[in-house]
């Protein structure tokens, strides 16, 4: 009975109500924003209520909240689709207008179409997206292993070169704050690797002392990470969480309408 109530409520709130809202919007333009706001209100309030009201129709295994979670996964899938459409639109526009860097868009779109087609073909044919029934890899896997993985790793690897260059040119002790940051940075960088052992390697008599000093430096680094850094991170996380909660309340109550494309709220 409870289960049925939850199911019916979901159908009413997230299927019938939007349809009625759209229909009303055709006749009364002023009501166009109301439907999405009501849907947004219930989509936000049901998961919150389910945490406080232990009723099966809300938080049971087949209740409203788990079903909304399931729908959210589906909505994420649509967001991915939206992203693909956006990439295709931007890419084709760039190519047709011969904007700067348009040949790269050809590479991008070719990669998207070829990889996507191979992946979809693997799924639709039932042979598997990455692995064939005999255990060998599919062309999709070949592309991923030989193009995508090395390319992404290469792009990130370039960061090491730029970081080193930036360390030489930009990381300066210009004032007290920058000096504190610089000293902490050097201590953490030195303490997270066996730097002293590395430096003492050519001098065997110094190695025991280097090992002892390295351990002390390691402990200092852990203290920096756990105490000043941990405290600052806690503050940032709590602040961000409070901000997110207040934004969520604004969205649920319909004060914030930016996500509807209706302006920034009251």
């Amino acid at each position, binding site marked *: 009975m409870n289960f049925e109530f939850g199911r019916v409520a979901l159908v009413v709130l997230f299927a019938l109500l939007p349809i009625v809202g759209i229909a009303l919007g055709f006749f009364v333009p002023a009501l166009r924003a109301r439907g999405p706001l009501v849907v947004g209100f219930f989509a936000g309030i049901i998961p919150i209520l389910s945490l406080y009201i232990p009723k099966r129709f809300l938080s049971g295994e087949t209740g409203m909240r788990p079903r909304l*979670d399931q729908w959210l996964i589906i909505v994420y*899938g649509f967001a991915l689709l939206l992203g693909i459409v956006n990439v295709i639109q931007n890419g084709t526009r760039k190519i047709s207008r011969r904007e700067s860097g348009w040949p790269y868009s050809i590479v991008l779109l070719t990669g998207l179409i070829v990889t996507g087609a191979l992946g979809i073909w693997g799924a639709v044919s039932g042979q598997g997206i990455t*692995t064939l029934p005999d255990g060998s890899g599919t062309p999709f896997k070949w592309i991923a292993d030989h193009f995508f993985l090395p390319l992404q790793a290469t792009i990130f690897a370039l960061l090491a070169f730029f970081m080193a260059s930036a360390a030489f040119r930009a990381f300066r002790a210009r004032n007290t704050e920058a000096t504190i940051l610089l000293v902490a940075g050097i201590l953490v960088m030195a303490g997270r690797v066996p*730097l002293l052992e590395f430096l003492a390697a050519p001098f065997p008599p110094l190695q025991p002392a280097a090992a002892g000093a390295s351990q002390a430096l390691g402990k200092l680094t852990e203290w920096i990470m756990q105490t000043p850094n941990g405290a600052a991170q806690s503050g940032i996380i709590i602040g961000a969480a409070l901000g997110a909660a207040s934004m969520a309340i604004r969205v649920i109550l319909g004060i914030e309408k930016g996500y509807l494309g209706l302006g920034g709220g009251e």
Partner: protein
Amino acid sequence: MAPFVDRLLNLDRRWLFLLVFAGVAVPIIMPMGLPVTTTASTRSAFEYIEALKPGDCVLISYDYGPSSAPENDPMAEGIMRQCFMKRIRVVICALYALGGLQLANNSLAKVSAEFPNLKYGVDYVNLGFKDGPAAVMKRMGDDIVGAFPTDVRGTPLAQIPMMKGVRSLRQVSVVVTVATGLIGEYWITQAHPQSGVPIIVGPTAVGAPKYYAYLNAGQLVGMLSGMKGAAEYEKLLAGRYPELGRFYKTTHAFTATKGMDAQTVIHFIIILFILIGNAAYMSQRAARRKAAAR
């Protein structure tokens, strides 16, 4: 002095790049075997898994991409090896869109080949990738089948023997999220409060600072922080399991312990760059002040 300082500050950056390249490449080609000391957060992650019994279930979530694979792969593989040594069942999933599943597949293929006596579907299973990490893990908190109806091979989870006793995250002993971005945080803020499942996180070194807040708050049972965390884990594994010790000593594959040599050299080079850059900057500033005073 001043012309030398000016020349130093305007040094062609390609010289710096060459030094960085040599600093990374040489230790990888010729490992130095520098010592690795362990930290409390890694030891606590290791001991937590060590305390599990054969037949318990560990979920390893591949929440990273190829960009951080040298840091994250050794973590995931080390933990997988430990679980396989102890006959702990392993569930694998990937929630990172940009290559998480490919890395999970490659990693599983590599480690499972080292344990030919273990069987897919009985000792380990690969659930594959699903988009929308926060929503997926919330669903897994109630019902894993709801989030992953089939495994990566398309087999319904109901037909996979080892999943019979694992309906939701409540039946999972610990979630190990090897993470590069926000997904590790989602496991702590979404999955842990809902199902109470303990979390071990393996972030990149760049992402590690924020997790100290969760570690201090007791919301994590352990953390492997960057390549150092992975190298520490390899050391702990080698110390506890002699066969893994032999493996890590003799393997030609990349390991975090080998990576630490390169990281040590590169940290040394960067520290040197910072010190030289600052010395030159201060000398230039002093010269300018002197000139202004005249």
